[in-house]
């Protein structure tokens, strides 16, 4: 178990979690479990709260914890972004985790990042019917959308070419940009491709390439660009 193996990591965890006075943690069957009422705030006031439970993964912080809404206030269905198999919340598209909770980050960033955004989204959805930061399609489709969003490209073949570039040892900035603009990479998508390769580990990109090949084989040509709405990008 991570908390017995890595004493430093556990000390950091304890210190970070103590900053949230509405959360308590306990160890149950060798697992670290956090419980409490998560408050959703607007800019100035408390909107509502959700009773939640966070089950810290056995190899924390490599794998993100699993988050559950236990007050039974949100329907547990994919439409509300809960996984059918275990009713856990689906906070982000799988590779997006590296964008919003990078490797090495602790529980505090996990809670203040994806957990906060997820329950803010749920409360906003309940009030307005809209997802404030958009939503990914379910399954593989959502994963491709995530890359489309990072690269700001819709064509699956171009996304594929760009992802392949991130696997190169060196990108020659004078190469033509795969997006078809006719510009050099440096003047075009180099920045986006570079930051993607810094954030997303190689194994995830290889996984994404498989998914894209599969989608292309099924005749799909483009990915939906989601709107992280109301956010100036």
């Amino acid at each position: 178990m991570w908390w017995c193996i890595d004493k430093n990591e556990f000390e950091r965890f304890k210190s970070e979690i103590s900053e949230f006075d509405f959360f308590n943690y306990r160890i149950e069957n060798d697992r670290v479990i956090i419980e409490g009422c998560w408050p959703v705030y607007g800019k100035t006031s408390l909107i509502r709260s959700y009773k939640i439970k966070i089950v810290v993964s056995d190899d924390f912080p490599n794998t993100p914890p699993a988050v559950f809404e236990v007050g039974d206030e949100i329907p547990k269905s994919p439409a509300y972004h809960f996984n059918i198999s275990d009713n856990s919340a689906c906070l982000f598209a799988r590779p997006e985790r590296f964008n919003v909770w990078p490797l090495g980050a602790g529980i505090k960033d996990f809670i203040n990042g994806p957990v906060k955004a997820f329950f803010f989204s749920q409360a906003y959805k309940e009030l307005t019917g809209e997802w404030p930061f958009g939503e990914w399609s379910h399954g593989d489709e959502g994963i491709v959308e995530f890359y489309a969003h990072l690269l700001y490209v819709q064509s699956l073949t171009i996304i594929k070419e760009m992802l392949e570039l991130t696997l190169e040892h060196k990108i020659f900035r004078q190469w033509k940009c795969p997006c078809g603009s006719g510009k050099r990479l440096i003047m075009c998508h180099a920045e986006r491709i570079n930051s993607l390769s810094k954030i997303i580990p190689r194994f995830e990109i290889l996984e994404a390439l498989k998914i894209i090949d599969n989608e292309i084989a099924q005749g799909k040509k483009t990915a939906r660009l989601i709107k992280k709405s109301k956010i100036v990008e």
Partner: protein
Amino acid sequence: MSMQDLFCKFHKNIKVETDELREKRDIIVDKIRNSLKNSDNPVPELLNQGSYIYGVGVKPIGDSEYDIDVGLVFSIKSSDYEAKIVRKWVYDAIATHTNNVEDRGPCIRVHYAAGYHVDLVIYSKYKDNDSVENYQLAFKNNTWHPSEPKQLKEFISDKRKPFVNTKDSSGADQLQRVTRYLKRWNDIFIPGDSDDKPFGLATLLLVIEKLPIPYVDVNGNSTDLEALINIVAKAKNTLGRIIIRKPTQEYEDVFSKLSDDAMNKFKNRLESLYSTLVSVRNMSDNDAAQSLQKQFGNDFPVPDKKEDELSIDSSMKKKAIADMDAAIPLFTNPSSPWSRG
């Protein structure tokens, strides 16, 4: 409950249900026709007219009666008969089965059952050389007056065309609803028959002139309050007397029966109605309804407590959404929800 919901409920409360009136009308008209058949005089055709044919009938208040307007059309040439003779045919026919008959200016009023009367309007109709139907109305003073009842009906249904998308669940469009509101408003301030009260037709023609197109919100839903404000503003700002001419013969001013004094009072009432209507725009539903009751009477609904609480709920909801909207830009790199699918 929105402002429009309140007006629609008000409309429902004051709207005349025509089925019952139609039944009453048929009974009395049958009686008249039978009596005329038994005499040697010509038998008239029927011409339904009046507020409930135009769909602007309002329930009477207090001791007032429902009135049903029926035209009796004799196929005769008006120059061949004196108006008083033709009126007498009808009068005599009715007198055989009721003595509750009143000979009034343009009509003969038959008091039917409790709470109802039928106004009979007597026409002569003949076709001239061009086969154009000429209608003449028989007045009490033994004169015939040219009249175009069918053209008037057409004029009104024509003017209702732009309002086709504003019909509520009762089938009434904004033009009809607003006319009913103003008719009830007149009844509240001048109950019963009075020369100081504009005719129902005058109110309808006033609305038609001042409201050429419907008032709707961005979603296309009727905003009867705004329509009313618009009509009342235009009417109250008229210099001198409000003059609305009948669109058909004899093109008379339908407000002419009001004395100058009555016209002034009418315009003052419009002024007060206007300030009320404008002031309720920014009030809570409950306060608005209470103000509007002072103009339109107690058939204007006041939302009950529960509905009021709901409106507090909805204003809290609006605040919460605004506060959340303000918080959205504070998320610099928000994740979006997914599911493994």
